């Protein structure tokens, strides 16, 4: 066995293989120490093999323990070894012993979608842990867990979770079709899987929700949605989703009703502001100054007197600054992270206006845009919103306020035209338990 494996794996140096002899029988052992848990091997295999060894007892253990099983086909050996399985051979029979090293044994802390008074545990990079986290929160016998393996080189495990009684069958069918079409070499992150499953690459908005919170996945499962978990990624994918799901923070479910409704409204206002404000600034300054009251118009004109360039150059300059600042604070090592905010926020904001490059109103516009953008609870959706505002800016350079209005209308039309796995993206009136509706429809013989 050992010779064959060593040959197939090109004689790797990190493979451990030996023939053990306890005086009664001989056993060939072969495993990757880096992929296996040494204490597990010691307690599970080496101790029973070496101390007070009796062959019938040892055989009974191999027969009874689910961690052990016989491997008949030699072509599976290398694959099993690479997954972190130990192989041993006793009397011409090859057995496997599952002794994968578990890197994560407790849930992660939430890092992106933090809440104040909700659960603080997030998913880990270990698939089995994640499945257990979801099962813990959605403890129904109807919860289906389907395993797929994707990626030619990475052979990543992907788990499909759904409630068999609630799920929309049309959606499930589509996912299975798309999963079977996924062709990637390595599947490194859920983001890749998201792109592969979304179909066309040029979509401006995500149609799959990416989340790190097991409680969000549980709520979504309860509503009949499908969740996808990928081994090695601390994010899960949820689909099909509507635009409103991206604007929903988990806090909304946990906090005081009226305040959370108010905050929800605030988020939508912030979204509209961050999309349209830079464009509206250009439109008002360069095309339609009659929109504002005369007092404000005159004070904008006053603050712009020293600015030598047209309004759109001012806007591009400031938007570039703020995007660079955001990108820099993301990439900077944590220990020098505060440098970016100090340099960018305090020094630049003050002096760029004093130098007469931008007007003071533009500074306000920029900060409103930046702050409102981060009010959006979902990062992927926030990225789309961050991008879409440039479309508005470019249109407003040529068409003024009318252009902004028409582009906003087009945006709504675009949202309406989007489909997330066959389900409308901007369906406003969908019952909370949306899946129930699909099932009633299915019973009535109609397809939804």
């Amino acid at each position, binding site marked *: 066995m050992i010779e064959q494996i060593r040959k197939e794996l090109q004689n790797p140096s990190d493979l451990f293989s030996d023939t053990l002899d306890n005086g009664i029988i001989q056993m060939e052992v072969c495993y990757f120490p880096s992929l296996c848990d040494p204490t597990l091997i010691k307690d599970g295999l080496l101790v029973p093999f070496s101390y007070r060894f009796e062959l019938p007892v040892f055989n009974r253990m191999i027969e009874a323990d689910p961690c052990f099983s016989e491997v008949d086909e030699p072509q599976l050996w290398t694959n099993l070894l690479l997954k972190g399985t130990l192989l041993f051979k006793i009397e011409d029979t090859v057995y496997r012993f599952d002794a994968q090293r578990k890197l994560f044994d407790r849930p992660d802390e939430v890092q992106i979608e933090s809440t104040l008074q909700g659960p603080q545990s997030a998913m880990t990079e270990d698939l089995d842990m994640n499945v257990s986290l979801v099962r813990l929160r959605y403890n129904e016998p109807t919860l289906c867990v389907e395993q797929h393996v994707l990626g030619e080189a990475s052979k990543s495990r992907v788990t499909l979770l759904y409630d068999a009684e609630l799920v929309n069958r049309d959606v499930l069918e589509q996912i299975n079709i798309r999963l079977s079409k996924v062709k990637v070499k390595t599947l490194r992150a859920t983001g890749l899987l998201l792109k592969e499953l979304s179909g066309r690459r040029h979509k401006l908005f995500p149609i799959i929700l990416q989340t790190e919170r097991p409680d969000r996945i549980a709520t979504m499962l309860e509503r009949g949605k499908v969740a996808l978990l990928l081994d090695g990624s601390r994010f899960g994918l949820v689909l099909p989703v509507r635009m409103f799901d991206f604007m929903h923070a988990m806090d909304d479910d946990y906090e005081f009703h009226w305040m959370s409704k108010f905050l929800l409204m605030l988020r939508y206002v912030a979204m509209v502001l961050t999309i349209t404000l830079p464009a509206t600034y250009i439109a*008002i*300054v*360069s*095309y*339609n*100054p*009659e929109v504002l009251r*005369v*007092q404000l*118009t*005159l*004070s*904008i*004109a*006053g*603050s*712009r*007197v020293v*600015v030598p360039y*047209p*309004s759109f150059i001012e806007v591009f300059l400031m938007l570039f600054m703020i995007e660079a600042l955001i990108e820099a604070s993301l990439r900077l090592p944590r220990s020098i992270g505060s440098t970016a905010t100090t340099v960018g926020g305090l020094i630049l904001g003050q002096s760029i206006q004093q130098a007469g490059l931008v007007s*003071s109103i533009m500074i306000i516009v920029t900060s409103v845009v930046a702050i409102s953008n981060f009010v959006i609870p979902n990062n992927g959706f926030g990225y789309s919103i961050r991008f879409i505002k440039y479309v508005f800016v470019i249109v407003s*350079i*040529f*068409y*003024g306020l*009318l252009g902004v209005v028409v582009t906003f209308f087009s945006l709504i039309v675009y949202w309406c035209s989007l489909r997330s796995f066959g389900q409308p993206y901007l369906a406003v009136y969908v019952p909370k338990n949306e899946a129930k509706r699909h099932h009633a429809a299915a019973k009535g013989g109609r397809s939804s």
Partner: protein
Amino acid sequence: MKKIAASILILGFLASSSGCGFKDLDKRFFVVAMGVDWTGDKEKPYEVTLRLAIPASKIGEGLAESQVEHLAAPSIAEAVRNLKSHVDKELDFGQCRIFLFGKTLIKHSMEEPLNWLSRRRDIQLISYAAVAQPTAMAILKANPATERIAGNAFFLTFGKEGTVSPYTVTEYLFDIFRRFSEKGMDPYFPTIRFDGDSYVVENLVLLNKTKEQLLLNRAETILYNLSANSFSRSGIAINYEGKRLVLYISRVSRDVSITRDRVPTVKLRFKITGIVEQSAVVLLNSKIPEVQGLLEQEMNRTTKKLLIKIRNAGVDPYGFGLHYLAKYFGNEQDWKHWQEVYPQVKFEVSSRVIIESTGLVR
């Protein structure tokens, strides 16, 4: 690739076809008030005055800087075009909230100024309009002591956000256009003059479809505002037991009906609710019905007098003619009939005054 090229091309075409020009705020001169006077000169009868705001980044004491430009020309359009060469930035009428017409112009004819105003795209229809005494130029050159932003005193005077006076009848440009063209409804303008440190708006000029016919005095103006626009916050004053008694009107509703006799009768009914604002005589609850009766009589008498005065001047700012036509499916014949009989139209005014309280003093 073809698709992208095509879309860039289309975008390019569209970009070059954009409507109004790209011009930054600080490259525009905002006209905050505009005045038109009639000089009487044969060659250049229209004197156009523009008040231009000079933007300031700091707003404070005495910073209401503005520049006044004026020019006489054969027409308003020519005057404005010529004025463009007198300033260094593009003129923008977008923020012009007030149009003033000189006393002489309104006595001559309003047709040409209104024609120019209604054709311009950048004229805001929510602007106010007023008659300037003695001339629009004099009003625009005046500097009110309390003005902090150029032209702000006009907006505060006429708009409801500043002072709300029953003497100030606010007239918007869109309403003027309507009144100048609508059958059975005639336009009016408030008058504005400058008393040395502030603007005074307390009279009303009534016009037929072209020029001034009647100037209402202060008492008539407040009564017109009450009876035509249901403007509360005004008052009725009577002599009661030899002393002055004033009712503050907090709510007023009116109802008009017109009979279809050969000579129609216009019936006006008012319901006025208010409180006693001032009374030298101690007013007991038992006397309130008596006072109410006296107030009603006063209201009926003065209103009827005003209505007859307006009718005799041959104008109809209340829109009784329009009401008549609307009520009786007016065709051309009805309209002719109304015009014939309008000088003899009878008025009936009945009012109900309710004194809610006598103020804090019981």
